[in-house]
């Protein structure tokens, strides 16, 4: 017998004899706030992320352009902004190790937790979301859900090979409980709310 068959046989033999039908899980969304974006901003900030308020008038991408100008190597996967490291030409994830700033667009966001979902389609090369020193995420405010129960209804979890909730930057408190951002992955994560171009508009 292969080890797989052994394990399966042992599980079949030892299954507790319980009559417990699978429960239907409610969405727990009765208390959804009127402004998902305000809630998202608060949650994100609490988790160490930065919320970039778009300027009242003029170029909505101004806060991002400032950061692009200050960075040496910039890798962008969004049509709105150009970087100087073409991700389409990158052959191996290792070639992204020197990227200072990456810019990507999230599939959607979760207000309750302040999370943005980055899938393999959003990242192009998954490693860019972790090897870059800093990450800027564009998020369409129309693509916000209230909580994780709603989030897991989304098709990305059934369609994408890889999808990851980012909630603030990489963090650790492994030494004496002292909170440090930039443990292994990005040192900072900033989210700019901005509607996607036509191609970016994805139905939930």
């Amino acid at each position: 017998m292969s080890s797989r068959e052994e394990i399966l046989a042992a599980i079949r033999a030892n299954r507790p004899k319980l009559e417990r039908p699978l429960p239907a899980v409610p969405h727990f969304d009765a208390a959804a706030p009127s402004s998902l974006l305000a809630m998202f901003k608060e949650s994100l900030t609490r988790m160490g992320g930065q919320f970039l308020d778009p300027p009242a008038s003029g170029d909505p991408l101004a806060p991002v352009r400032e950061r692009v100008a200050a960075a040496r190597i910039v890798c962008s996967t969004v049509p709105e902004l150009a970087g100087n490291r073409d991700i389409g030409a990158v052959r191996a994830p290792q070639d992204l190790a020197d990227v200072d700033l990456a810019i990507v667009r999230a599939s959607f966001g979760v207000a309750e937790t302040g999370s943005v979902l980055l899938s393999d389609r959003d990242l192009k090369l998954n490693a860019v979301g972790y090897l870059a020193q800093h990450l800027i995420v564009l998020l369409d405010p129309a693509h916000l859900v209230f909580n994780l129960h709603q989030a897991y209804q989304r098709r990305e979890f059934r369609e994408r090979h890889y999808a990851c909730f980012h909630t603030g930057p990489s963090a650790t408190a492994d030494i004496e409980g002292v909170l440090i951002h930039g443990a292994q992955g990005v040192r900072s994560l900033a989210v700019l709310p901005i509607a996607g171009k036509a191609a970016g508009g994805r139905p939930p």
Partner: protein
Amino acid sequence: MASVGIEVTETDLGERIRQLDDEDPSHVVVPAVHKLRTDVAEVFANTLGTDPNNSDVHYLAESQRGATRPLILEADAGMTGCNFAVAETGSVVVCTNEGNADLSANVPKLHIASIGIEKLIPRLEHLAVFVRLLSRSALGSPITQYTSHFRGPRQGGEMHFVLVDNGRSARLGMEEFWTSLKCIRCGACMNTCPVYRRSGGLSYGATYSGPIGIIIDPTFNAHKYSRLPFASTLNGSCTNVCPVKINIHEQIYAWRRELVKRHEVPFVKKAAMKAAAELLAHPTAYRAAVNVTNAALEHLPRFVIYNGLNAWGKHREVPHPPKETFYSWYQANRGGKP
């Protein structure tokens, strides 16, 4: 893996400290929680070549980042664990705060996920419940910084899942103990346990410490971990905080019975328990014994108290006996009054 010549590098800061110092983890969420910054400075100075006099936490964390990243870039394979595996989609879900799992899985060509078979849950709708439970029970945050869903390999990469049994399927058949398989490794039971909080995780001598360790370690090796279920006051705090409602303190008690049945409890302990039961059932005899013992402790020479027969005198001083017991004080001051 090291025994077959594979070099393994832990990428979580706490795990890396533990690995460099060749220790067991002392906590399921924060493995190096027992170390002070100066301890970490010493470990890193000896292994990573950092400044032994610099114990600034930011410096130490940054040094580890700088030392580990090149290793990830050169690695042939990245290994992750698995917090939840979703049957509906075939996805493996990994929760970290450092992003080290995503680096390990997304930089090397090969990703191997090691999955305890009890991590399997039916559907995505159930995943929502567990993701919400995990971090709030572990750290009090609404979610971990990274919650990663791996459903297939990335282009040009390979992904392999290894399902680990290691005694779990056998535990499933143990009527009193199978619910310990519900554990999501949040560590809440450790954080609340009065014994764990005093003794620390290393004293358990096992990978899993604290209340949850007490009830799952014997399923891996009942002989080696036979003493752990006795290191509890059965106060039930662990059961009260457990987010998946495992009756931990009841299982600790049940393990004591099970270990006696399996003859894993030494004769001396059993004889002592029998004598204690006899004594505690007879108040007059008990009080006489207390008086004699207290008087004896006061006057006996050290070699009688500190020897191999008295485990309480190993590695520590026996406390001074009180001048008066509560019972004798009560009798003298309130005796006979309602």
